[in-house]
């Protein structure tokens, strides 16, 4: 199996981003902690350096630090049933332990409930801990596309947030400046979409196991030139692989898609299991959340309002069925895996109905696996194996 050259580049990119955050903070650039679904373009246009606690929690989990950190938070009285990203991230704040060396504290926090209700509570706790202002973007949940009233409501808040970040130490966010950042975001999102789309090829030159890792820059660096450059190189490399017929999984025998966040504590083991059974994980609803269309620099506030309200997790089960069914068809998959993620109610509750509906719409076979994105105490690789191996065999794949 030929590994992606971009893996090394990713490490360097992330390391440079961490160093830039530290350096920028030292020379007086303000730092904004933001959720993954926040309109980061606004804080970038205001000259803030963004930092993503969710990404940070995922890194902690992938590095095997999550249980210790989660326990620090639980010791402060927070239930173990709460989101493990929250528990890991706050545990890192309490203990000062992080794989990134140290965390640069926020000057402001920007949170949007377009991905879940948890983040509004998580970041309230964080804002109180650091005694910094919390800016909240309320995006109405909707089963259909956002209404005009929804967009107007969100737009009004975005304009307010832009004024607030300028007041809190940033530059004034002019439409012109914001347009430039939005344009860079759009370029990066389009490149990322191109990369993911190439998994539709047979054999798939790139899988969601790769995507889960290579999504880091699109989450934490979109809106920057570095992000565009990163994905241009990744796109070119995946294209080369596609042309050369290089498969991510040796002797691909089945193709499946994934719903929900990765299971970080066993990410590598799962990847190996899929490879062992010659199953390509060709698409997923999580990393493709950063392939939104219609990000237009012409009217940036309205465009951002539409895009950030229309995020997959801000819609109900019917929308998820549509997205997942389209993905099954687009990637020519015969199966799909629904990760019932104990830590993410918004993403997980209702998956049983989604499974039935997607199967009925596409004819693909689905399986629900129970785990957690970051807490190893709620993840059993053996249990996952017991669920997945018979599923793979049903799809005609064997080890």
């Amino acid at each position, binding site marked *: 199996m030929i590994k992606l050259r971009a893996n090394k580049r990713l490490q360097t990119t992330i390391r440079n981003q961490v160093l830039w955050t530290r350096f920028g903070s030292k020379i007086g650039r303000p730092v904004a902690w933001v959720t993954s679904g926040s309109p980061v373009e606004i804080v970038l246009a205001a000259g803030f350096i963004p930092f993503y606690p969710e990404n940070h929690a995922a890194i902690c989990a992938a590095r095997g630090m999550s249980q210790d950190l989660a326990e620090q938070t639980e010791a*402060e*009285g*927070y*239930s173990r*049933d*709460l*989101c493990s990203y929250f528990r890991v991230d706050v545990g890192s704040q309490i203990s000062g332990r992080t794989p990134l060396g140290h965390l640069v504290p926020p000057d402001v926090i920007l949170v949007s*409930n377009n991905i*879940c*209700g*948890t983040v*509004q*509570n*998580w970041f*309230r*706790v964080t804002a*109180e801990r650091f005694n910094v202002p919390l800016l*909240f973007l*309320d995006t*109405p*949940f*909707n*089963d259909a596309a956002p*209404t005009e*009233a*929804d967009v107007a*409501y969100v737009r*009004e*808040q975005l304009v*307010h947030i832009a004024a607030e970040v300028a007041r809190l130490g940033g530059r004034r966010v002019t439409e012109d400046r914001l347009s430039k950042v939005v344009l860079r975001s759009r370029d990066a999102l389009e490149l990322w979409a191109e990369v993911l789309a190439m998994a539709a090829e047979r054999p798939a030159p790139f899988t969601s196991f790769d995507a889960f890792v290579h999504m880091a820059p699109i989450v934490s660096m979109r809106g920057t030139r570095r992000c565009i450059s990163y994905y241009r190189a990744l796109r070119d490399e995946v294209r080369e692989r596609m042309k050369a017929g290089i498969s991510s999984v040796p002797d691909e025998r089945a193709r499946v898609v994934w719903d929900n966040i990765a299971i970080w504590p066993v990410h590598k083991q799962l990847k190996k299991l899929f490879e062992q059974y010659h199953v390509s994980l060709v698409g997923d609803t999580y990393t493709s959340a950063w392939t939104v269309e219609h990000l237009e620099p012409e009217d940036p506030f309205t465009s951002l309002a539409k895009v950030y309200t229309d995020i997959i997790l801000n819609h*109900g*089960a*019917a929308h*998820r*069925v549509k997205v997942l069914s389209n993905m099954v068809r687009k990637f020519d998959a015969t199966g799909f895996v629904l990760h*019932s993620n*104990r830590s993410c*109610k*918004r993403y*997980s*509750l*209702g*998956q*049983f*109905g*989604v499974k*039935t*509906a997607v199967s009925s719409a596409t004819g693909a076979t689905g399986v629900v696996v*129970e785990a957690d994105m970051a807490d190893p105490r709620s993840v059993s690789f053996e249990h996952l194996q017991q669920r997945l191996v018979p599923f793979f065999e049903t799809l005609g794949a064997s080890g």
Partner: protein
Amino acid sequence: MVADRLDAVADDPIAEARSRAALEGRALGLGLSSYFPLEVFDAFGLAGVRMLPRPMDGYPQADGVLQAFACAPVRSMLETLLQADLPIGLVGSTSGCDAVTTVPGILNAAMPSLPVVSLRLPIAVESEAADRHATLALLDLCRETEAILGRPLDLGVLETAVVDREAVRVRVGNLFGRLPTRDIPASRAYAAAIAAQVMAPRAFLALCDEVFPADAAPTGTDGIPILLSGELVPSVQWIRDLESLGAAIVSDDTNTGTRDAGRRVRRDPPNRLKAIAESLMHRPVHSPERFVSGRPRGVAARAREAGVKAAILLHYKFCDPSAFEAPSLVAALKEVGIPSLVLEVDRQITMTGGDRTRVQTLLEALP
């Protein structure tokens, strides 16, 4: 005894809802969350009732459509709906915690013939934009309801329903306001609060007049004064169990009790729907699932004012809003010198042996 009638309703509110629908010859308009404005369902000709958890051994049907890491009240409500033995005209949900927010989608998949509408209330409060959007969200809900039911909102009935429902909330609020002086046992106030969610407003008020006559002698219980905070109380029996251990609830911060009862609809603006929407946004005692700053300190201040000696925080397993709030509530109470105990409950209706011991230990440890 009229009090027995109140207790019977509170012990099985779903049975009351069913018999009310039969008596009135109207289908039920079920509000899934504590702040769904039932007056709107009333004005569409439905019998507006709040969906409450009911005693049951398990959730066999709900477990087929919803993972077990949703809280017991949501699973219980879903189980009741899936049993399909209620005359339901419409189900109304509101955006709120992640579990409640996902319920309409789950219902649409599991019971496609069951009509469900959602009130997409802003989570943010304290802003004009949110107030405006709340009104638009309520208008959307009305349009959707009209399309489903095929009949318009009756503005005359809405006017009456607003007045009647407010009278119910005022009455419930007054009952809880009597707890610090121990005029009535807390279990009776909770029984009334539960009954208020399912009975026809005027029938409820009439029953209250009989159960709580103005000239009655105080009937409250002795005991150590405590605060009870949480989403829904599991049952009146659970409160009775607490009282039997020597606790007297003198301050309430639950969705069953004062949180909803504090809502007031302004009568002066000509747009009644706007007034209802604003009443939802400006409720003085919010649930933690709304984005309200300073809530824990407010709860602690009220507890101190009521002279409580300890607090019990009722936390449903898998209820994220209260799990997030618990540590800050504990800290805020501690700041004003009130020790607290977090009790995690799941689907039990009565107090478990373990919880009894925890409460006893707390009460015995008080100076």
